């Protein structure tokens, strides 16, 4: 499969049903990786794809952004970091205090108690420590990457900025993380998740005159100064509207803010999203997709939020499992890939390709 041309941008989104990863080609063979998920063989999807199109991941990946620590966004990210040797790594500023490092180190010693998220963070932190290297932290209105590139003979500004977390939510998360550090004599239980998603990193990507908004899992937080309201008013977003939106938090109602659609995104924006399927929780719902369809006809989802029934290859094991368990489903059973390519700053419509379980939604 040929990769994008030097003058083409690409936004690829991967979703196995429980997981999400995004790749962006920012021109001239340079890539950024946002989060990671694994396919059924547990290989990091972004690495597998980049290698399949002949990208030298050691040198061509410039930036890795870890938007938050939830398992569905972080699986395989430490392998991505290991292989993309020259890339800078970005964490949410909410995950940079010493308390978070303490939490990671505490659970690292007992892997079965640590969530995948904390293990992956822990691995990256250890690798950085060994290399005496550093990382950047993402917060509202912060430029993470900037380059003046020559594309097709013209000068283009390539810039990646973080739009969240807000200062208030960073402060709140420090408090939450401190409370999660176990105390002497407490029972050892698996580390719970940090909820809700108020510290996820939303990104604004500028490639020449093109704009892309990546919503991560950022939710609204239901206050007047809610996350998305703050973002809509960000000075970074005033110059142009986005033509691609990675819909926040799998299209959930808790991440929906109409101002984003009306003020930040262009008409008929290409809305890309992944489903979230975990136990009884399924996103997006039909209502969610229909709500999005009120703003654009270009809705691309990596797979339907349906669960695939599990079947063990050994009949004896399957039979015993059925006797003792019900609602048996594969967690990562519906892998899909949505790929959008567009010549940078041209008037041509983007081309979208769907692979695996990916589909275009229409009412």
């Amino acid at each position: 499969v040929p990769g994008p041309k030097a003058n083409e941008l690409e936004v690829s989104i991967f979703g196995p049903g429980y997981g999400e990863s995004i790749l962006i080609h920012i021109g001239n063979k340079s890539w950024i990786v946002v989060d990671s998920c694994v396919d059924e063989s547990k290989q990091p999807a972004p690495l597998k794809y980049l290698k399949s199109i002949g990208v030298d991941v050691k040198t061509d990946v410039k930036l890795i952004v870890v938007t938050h620590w939830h398992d569905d966004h972080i699986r395989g990210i430490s392998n991505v970091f290991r292989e993309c040797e020259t890339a800078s790594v970005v964490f949410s500023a909410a995950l940079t205090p010493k308390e978070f490092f303490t939490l990671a180190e505490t659970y690292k010693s007992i892997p079965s108690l640590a969530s995948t998220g904390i293990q992956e963070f822990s691995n990256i932190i250890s690798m950085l420590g060994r290399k005496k290297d550093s990382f950047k932290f993402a917060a509202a209105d912060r430029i993470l990457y900037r380059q003046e590139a020559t594309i097709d003979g013209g000068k283009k500004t390539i810039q990646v900025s973080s739009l969240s977390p807000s200062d208030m939510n960073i402060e709140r998360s420090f408090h939450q993380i401190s409370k999660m550090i176990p105390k002497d004599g407490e029972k050892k239980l698996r580390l719970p998740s940090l909820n809700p998603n108020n510290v996820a990193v939303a990104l604004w990507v500028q490639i020449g005159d093109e704009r892309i908004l990546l919503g991560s899992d950022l939710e609204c937080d239901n206050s007047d100064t809610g996350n998305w309201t703050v973002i809509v008013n960000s000075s970074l977003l005033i110059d142009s509207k986005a033509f691609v939106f990675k819909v926040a938090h799998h299209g959930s109602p808790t991440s929906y803010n109409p101002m984003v659609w009306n003020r930040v995104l262009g008409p008929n924006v290409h809305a890309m999203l992944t489903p979230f399927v975990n136990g009884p929780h399924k996103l997006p719902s039909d209502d969610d997709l229909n709500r999005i369809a009120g703003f654009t006809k270009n809705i691309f989802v990596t797979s339907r939020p349906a669960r695939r029934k599990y079947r063990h290859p050994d009949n004896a094991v399957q039979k015993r499992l059925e006797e003792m368990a019900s609602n048996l489903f594969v967690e990562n059973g519906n892998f899909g890939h949505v790929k959008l390519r567009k010549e940078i700053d041209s008037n041509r419509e983007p081309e979208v390709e769907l692979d695996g379980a990916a589909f275009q939604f229409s009412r």
Partner: protein
Amino acid sequence: MGTTSTDSSMVKSGEAGLNTASVKPDFRKSSIDSIEALGMQVKHVPKKGTGTHSGHSFFPRSAPIAVTSYVHFTKGLGRREYFEVKQKWVGIVTKVKSESFSARLVDETSNQSDIVADLLMEDVDSEDKSLLQVGAIFYLSIGYLNRTSGRIRASLMRFKREPEWSHDELVKAQQKAELLSKEIGWTDK
């Protein structure tokens, strides 16, 4: 914790977390306590046939070695009895309901995708029930209990017993975190 026994006819699934599909009554008379308490030994040979693995053969008590997917009970089961594991998972409890609980099962045998399932509370060992809560870790194995009298499809579920967090563990983690914080700097590059 129950007592262990060398009497092969005394296998109690209720206490052991050992459950069989077809011959449950036999096992309700046993006294297996836990895999660990039985002094179970498990050894993994990289590839079938490359080690001392001998298929379905008998492993004498004097040399309590189990290879590949065999779990060898060195106490509690009779000389010619062993639990042959076909599939192992590490489970994480995600929700506890009145008669069942939800869990994510991480494949320990073939590194396949995790699965989610609702499991029956009645399959949890009575001594493990106090450990059943969101976040608890358990081990689930499905295989065959091979006995002189025959082969029975069986499962074994045990909840992890972790000591409480200790002062030393926490201080050590804090010190390591402080060291890492110093080694890793902030960058504007």
